[in-house]
C-alpha cells in the first residue's frame, strides 16, 4: 500500500509514490539517485546518512520518508557542485579532513548545521557537535580543523 509523497529536495519539488516503511535515506539513494548520502551503520549511530530536514541535521536512516511530507530536505548534493565546492567541502579537501571519505557527507552536513547556529564555533563546540558522527579512519583532528576553517571561509 503506497502513498503519494510530496516534498522539496535540494530546492526542487519532488512527488512520488512510496511505501510508508520507506526510510528517508532509501528514498534519497534509491528513488532519487542521490547517493552522496551514505548508509553506514543503519542504526542511527554513525551519522553517515545525515541530511538537513527543514534546516536541521537529522539521521535519514532513522526517519521515515513520509515524515518529510511538505518539508525541505537538503543533501550533500544540494550544497555545492563538482565545479564549485561549498566552502565547507573545500575546507575538508584543503585540510585533509577525510581519509576514506565514507563519513564525509554526514560530517559536512553536521558541520553546516553547527555553523548556521554558531558562526564561529570553538574546537570543543565542534567536537561536541560531531558526537553523532563517527569516522572509523579516526581522522577527527583534521575534521575539526577543517570545520574551523570552513566556518571562517563561510564568513568571508
Amino acid at each position, binding site marked *: 500500500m503506497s502513498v503519494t509523497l510530496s516534498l522539496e529536495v535540494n530546492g526542487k519539488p519532488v512527488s512520488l509514490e512510496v511505501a510508508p516503511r520507506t526510510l528517508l535515506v532509501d528514498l534519497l539513494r534509491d528513488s532519487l539517485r542521490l547517493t552522496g548520502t551514505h548508509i553506514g551503520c543503519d542504526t542511527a549511530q554513525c551519522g553517515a546518512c545525515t541530511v538537513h530536514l527543514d534546516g536541521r541535521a537529522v*539521521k535519514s536512516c*532513522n526517519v521515515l520518508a*513520509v515524515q518529510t511530507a511538505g518539508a525541505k530536505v537538503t543533501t550533500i548534493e544540494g550544497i555545492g557542485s563538482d565545479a564549485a565546492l561549498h566552502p565547507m567541502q573545500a575546507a575538508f579537501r584543503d585540510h585533509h579532513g577525510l581519509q576514506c571519505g565514507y563519513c564525509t557527507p554526514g560530517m559536512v552536513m553536521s558541520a553546516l548545521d553547527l555553523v548556521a547556529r554558531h558562526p564561529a564555533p570553538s574546537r570543543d563546540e565542534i567536537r561536541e557537535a560531531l558526537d553523532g558522527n563517527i569516522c572509523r579512519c579516526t581522522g577527527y583532528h583534521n575534521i575539526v580543523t577543517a570545520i574551523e576553517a570552513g566556518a571562517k571561509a563561510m564568513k568571508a
Partner: protein
Amino acid sequence: MYEFAYHRATSLENAASLLASADDGRVLAGGQTLVAAMKLRLAAPSDLVDLRGIPELSGVCRDGDTMIIGAMTTHSAVNASDDLKATIPALAELAGGIGDAMVRNQGTIGGSVANNDPAADYPAALLALGATIRTERRTIAADDFFTGMYETALEPGEMIVSIGFPIPKRAAYVKFPNPASRYALVGVFVADGPAGVRVAVTGAGSGVFRATAFESALSGRFAPEALDGLTVDASELSGDMHASAEYRAHLVGVMARRAVGKSTGA
C-alpha cells in the same frame, strides 16, 4: 521493517479517531526510538499516527509559575529556549545532553516521556520537578505516571499533549553517560521547588525513582555534605556489562552530590 499504514493527523481529535479505528495503532512523534525499534522488528504496529502536522503541540510557554512544554517540542528546541534558560536552566541543559545533535533535532519530549526508557534523561526531570503530564483526556502527576520499565500510566490510544513544570528555586541534573550510547548509566536530577526537595534517579534501575533518604537529608541542609554516608540499596539496581549494581549505587551518591553542588553554585 514490517508494513504499516501511515496517517498524518490534522488535529488531536483526528489523531484520537485514527488511533481508535486502528488494530494496533501507535503514535509517531519524532520516531527516534520507534522507527529504530520498527527497523529491528521489535515493534510492528498496524498503523502509525503522525502528530507532526499539529503545530499547537510544539513550543514552550509560561503559565504563572509553571513552564509548559508541548509534547512535540524537540530536544533541540527545549535546549535553545530562552524562556527555559531563564526559569529552569537545568531542564534546558538536560535536553542538550540527550543523544547527539541529530537525535535532538528530531526526538521530542512527549515521545521520550511516553517511551519511559529506564535510562532516559527526561523522566528524572519530570519526577524531581513534580511535573504534570497533560493528555487529551486528563492530567497525570509525574509521581503516578512512570509505572515501570517502558511502562506508563497512559491508556491505549492516550496521547501526551504537554508537560507542565513548576519553576523551582534551584535545580540541577548530572549524569554519567555511557560513553558509547550517551544514555545515562546513572543520572540524578535534584530540585528544590514548591514541593520541597526532590531527588530523582534514572539509569540505575528498572525505571526512574526518588531517593527519599537523600531528600530528607537535603531538606535539613541543602549542601553536598548533607549526603555524606548515604547510599541507595544496590540490590534493587541494575547490573550489566556496562556497570555493576554496586557501581551504579556508588554513582548515584556521586551524581547526587555533584548535582546539589551545581544547583547551589558550589
